[in-house]
């Protein structure tokens, strides 16, 4: 191997110099000459028939170029979705509005202020219809969300194992039998996993331009899926995908909310072509809250049955999952991701039934973790409740029910999915046998002895990520909805330029994950060319091979592996060229110290400059050797990856106010091999913060009429620096066997592991009072109420 191995080493990020100087370009920073601006007229009602739209006054307002309604764009069809169940979203409201904030008309004007002013002049008459917001009420079908749909339950995912009816019946019978035994304990809790607003700090933004001469759209968008966006635009306008150039420049956080195709992205293209001007739309924070996809929104009952000494005999989860009014990219597929991890890293029979329920609210879709945090939350909360009930240590109960490490490879989880590698006991032991954990417990006991409410929570998680496998395409997850039939594979292109600098081009669309650095490490490791000579290009559909995008903690495992394979091909070609230059056998060529040399005689060497030069002067090459020094590779993963880990935290609850403080937070994560530990730690930190945010602060609250009561950052509370402790991280390393790098993915792990850890800790703190559960978010008022209820009940 090369002598400059940088895999597993900390490298300062290549993307940072621009970002810390303020010269990084985000979508809203893009300036195209003669750009015009968009404002939307939005529905104030959750469900109503539109009886009249009068755009006359708006059309005549200063600076206005056009006002569009559905009549102008109906022919373009609704937004595509990968799981096209329920109702697809029309580009603008078509006769009825189905959630507050739904766009009814689009105004285009010379300036943004003029567009906003003119939007106020559009008159819309509504005939209000009954709205249904509450999930249980929606599931009862008393009020239909869409008249023409049979039921508000647009899809049901059932597993135990998934897709196996006989197996499901058997599992149900086993669980019923266990419950019926006289010597078992059954615990059951109804819990909410509340709706969240993803809240990337960068609002979504898009600018589109149409060049009639080139017959090409040039689109800049804050998206995680530039290729899918190009495909969607092309399909909508009947163009080839190469007639649409999408660039995702710096993207200021995604977390799933930019893993979607939005109507505004299509509409700015439409307007740009109609008007012959670049058209830009940047959402306001309020629009971001109301109109960018939301996450979670489950209410479910988890039931667990086990013996008195901690052997779990069965687990059931039945939940209603809020889809909102319209299905978009992955909407109804999100609960399916919960099914994947529904039995966690455990071996007990598991039955799941997840109903996807439409309501008159904004669409839900992927938000960091996407289905997996919800599923793991229910599982790890109910295991905790069970351990408490039988008076056993919650770690011990988990340990007893883990899938043993010896079972790998070849493990198929109780819900029916093949898992790559795992050593769950080792990981949990690394947590509970650490000094830090002992200190947590000792500190809790000390605080308790002073009469204070303190608690320690632990929770373990397994997640599925690194999507793949390619075979998901056979289940319909193939991007065909966007005209780009492609499986969940990875791709990477590595090019050594004539001056021996390297350009790496990848199809991902990162939003802070540090791909430029990580990919440069992968390529530098293979070629021995220093990282500062490597430039990584991403998010640009004109430059890059087809890429699926950055989400589901998939980039390193899938696209990173593809890039690794491409670099290997380049290396093999370079060896051939070096062998020619050195008049040696190809097999004897080794790389190092800025070039290649003959094994055993390091003086016989050529530099990368010499190799690159000859590559681009093919007349100097022997016959049959092609010029150039680049390669593209596709990596088709045979399976997803399954990271796992253990979290613990210490909390104190103020009995008087209900205020919760997290005093310490520990994790032991296992994401397989690690390319850059600094970046991995950063992903874990951010992930924990979002899980803690859900546990303690965040909630998208709708009133009964379907108004979002939390549209600003004043009402939708994100954790600040003061709300969080420093995090104490460790890792175990169990390499994946489904990709050549042995990596698993870490983008979502922190979020998947954390919310229940905090709730378990708070319940532990309140357990002396008899509290068994408190729903998230654990705001002071709710915790205080739980304390009062418990005291009143005593």
């Amino acid at each position: 191997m090369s002598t400059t191995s940088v895999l597993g080493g900390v490298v300062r990020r290549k993307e940072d110099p621009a970002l810390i100087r303020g010269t990084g370009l985000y979508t809203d920073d893009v300036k195209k000459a003669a750009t015009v601006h968009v404002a939307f007229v939005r529905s104030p009602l959750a469900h109503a028939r539109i009886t009249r739209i009068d755009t006359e006054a708006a059309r005549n307002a200063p600076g206005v170029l056009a006002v569009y309604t559905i009549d102008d764009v109906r022919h373009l069809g609704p937004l595509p979705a990968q799981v096209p169940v329920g109702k697809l979203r029309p580009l603008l409201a078509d006769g009825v509005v189905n959630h507050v904030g739904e766009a009814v008309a689009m105004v285009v004007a010379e300036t943004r202020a003029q567009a906003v002013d003119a939007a106020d002049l559009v008159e819309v008459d509504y005939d209000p219809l009954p709205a249904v917001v509450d999930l249980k009420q929606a599931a009862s079908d008393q009020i239909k969300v869409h008249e023409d749909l049979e039921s508000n339950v647009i899809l049901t995912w059932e597993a135990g194992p998934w897709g196996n009816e006989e197996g499901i019946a058997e599992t149900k019978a086993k669980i019923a039998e266990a419950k019926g035994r006289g010597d078992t304990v059954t615990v059951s809790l109804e819990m909410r996993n509340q709706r969240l607003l993803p809240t990337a700090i960068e609002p979504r933004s898009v600018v589109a331009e149409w060049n009639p001469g080139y017959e090409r759209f040039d689109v800049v968008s804050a998206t995680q899926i530039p290729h899918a966006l190009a495909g969607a635009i092309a399909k909508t306008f009947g163009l080839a995908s190469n007639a649409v150039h999408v660039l995702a420049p710096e993207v200021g956080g995604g977390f799933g909310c930019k893993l979607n195709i939005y109507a505004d992205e299509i509409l700015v293209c439409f307007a740009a072509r109609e008007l012959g001007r670049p058209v830009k739309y940047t959402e306001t924070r309020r629009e971001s809250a109301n109109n960018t996809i939301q996450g979670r929104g489950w209410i479910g009952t988890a039931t667990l049955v086990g013996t008195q000494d901690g052997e779990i005999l069965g687990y059931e989860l039945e939940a209603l999952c809020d889809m909102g009014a319209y299905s978009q990219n992955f909407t109804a597929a999100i609960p399916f991701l919960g099914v994947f991890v529904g039995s966690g890293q455990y071996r007990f029979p598991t039955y799941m039934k997840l109903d996807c329920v439409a309501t008159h609210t904004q669409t839900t879709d992927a938000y960091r973790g996407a289905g997996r945090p919800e599923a793991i939350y229910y599982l790890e909360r109910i295991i905790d409740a069970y351990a408490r009930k039988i008076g056993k240590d919650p770690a011990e109960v988990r340990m007893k029910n883990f899938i043993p490490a010896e079972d790998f490879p070849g493990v198929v989880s109780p819900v029916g999915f093949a898992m790559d590698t795992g050593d769950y006991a080792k990981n949990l032991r690394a947590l509970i046998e650490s000094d830090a954990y002992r200190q947590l417990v000792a500190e809790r006991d000390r605080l308790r002895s002073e009469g204070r409410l303190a608690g320690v929570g632990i929770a373990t998680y397994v997640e599925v990520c690194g999507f793949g496998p390619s075979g998901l395409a056979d289940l319909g997850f193939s991007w065909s909805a966007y005209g780009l039939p492609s499986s969940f594979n990875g791709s990477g292109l590595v090019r050594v330029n004539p001056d021996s600098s390297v350009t790496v081009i990848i199809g991902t669309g990162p939003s802070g994950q540090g791909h430029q650095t990580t990919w440069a490490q992968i390529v530098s490791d293979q070629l021995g060319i220093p990282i500062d000579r490597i430039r990584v290009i991403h998010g640009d559909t004109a430059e890059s091979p087809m890429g699926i995008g950055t989400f589901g903690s998939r980039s390193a495992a899938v696209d990173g592996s593809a890039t690794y394979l491409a670099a290997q091909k380049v290396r093999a070609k370079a060896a051939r060229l070096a062998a020619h230059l050195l008049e040696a056998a190809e097999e004897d060529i080794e790389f190092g110290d800025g070039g290649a040399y003959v094994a055993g005689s390091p003086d016989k060497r050529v530099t990368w400059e010499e190799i690159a030069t000859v590559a681009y002067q093919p007349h100097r090459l022997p016959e049959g050797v092609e010029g150039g020094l680049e390669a593209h590779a596709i990596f088709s993963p045979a399976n997803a990856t399954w990271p796992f880990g253990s979290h613990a935290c210490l909390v104190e609850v103020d009995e008087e106010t209900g205020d919760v403080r997290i005093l310490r937070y520990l994790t032991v994560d296992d994401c397989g091999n690690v390319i850059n530990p600094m970046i991995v730690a950063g992903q874990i930190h951010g992930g924990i913060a979002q899980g803690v945010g859900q546990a303690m602060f965040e909630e998208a609250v709708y009133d009964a009429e379907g108004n979002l009561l939390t549209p600003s950052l004043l009402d939708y509370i994100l954790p600040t620096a003061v709300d969080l402790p420093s995090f104490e991280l460790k890792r175990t390393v169990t390499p994946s066997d489904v990709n050549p790098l042995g990596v698993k993915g870490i983008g979502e792990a922190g979020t998947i592991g954390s919310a229940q850890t905090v709730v378990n800790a708070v319940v532990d703190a309140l357990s002396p009072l008899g509290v068994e559960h408190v729903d998230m978010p654990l705001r002071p008022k709710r915790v205080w109420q739980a304390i009062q209820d418990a005291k009143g009940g005593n």
Partner: protein
Amino acid sequence: MQVSMTVNRRAVTADVEPRMLLVHFLREELGLTGTHIGCETSYCGACTVLVDGRTTKSCTMLAVQADGAEILTVEGLAQDGQLHPVQEGFWERHGLQCGYCTPGMIMSAVGLLQENANPTEDEIRHGIEGNLCRCTGYHNIVRAIEYAAAKMRGEEPPPPEWEHEEVIA
């Protein structure tokens, strides 16, 4: 209306609409797009700049109110190609991911360290409470500011955490 101010040590004069916010003036009139907009309602801190040395959310201020003021934005921090210690700290300690909150966060940190050269972790956390970051969980932002504070005091910054990361094979 005409306004004159000093932005990043350069005098600027411009005609602006009375309702134009300072952040729009910086971004649109001066092309200083390093100052970001996350909410336009004073909650996120992405737009933080220094106005006469004081950290200010530039979406809460009209351009005309800044008449005669001295403004420092993230673009003006580095001098003669030398990064400001706070910028260096963010790079050295991975204090940013998507980078969107970063300019505002850096300017808040600069303001904080002007007032308190040797802040505790708690003081740092309170000092940046008005700046939201959705990516980092603030952990490495705190480390970045600790790094910068040490540097500015002429001391050796604490070593990075990854040097003593515990990994169990």
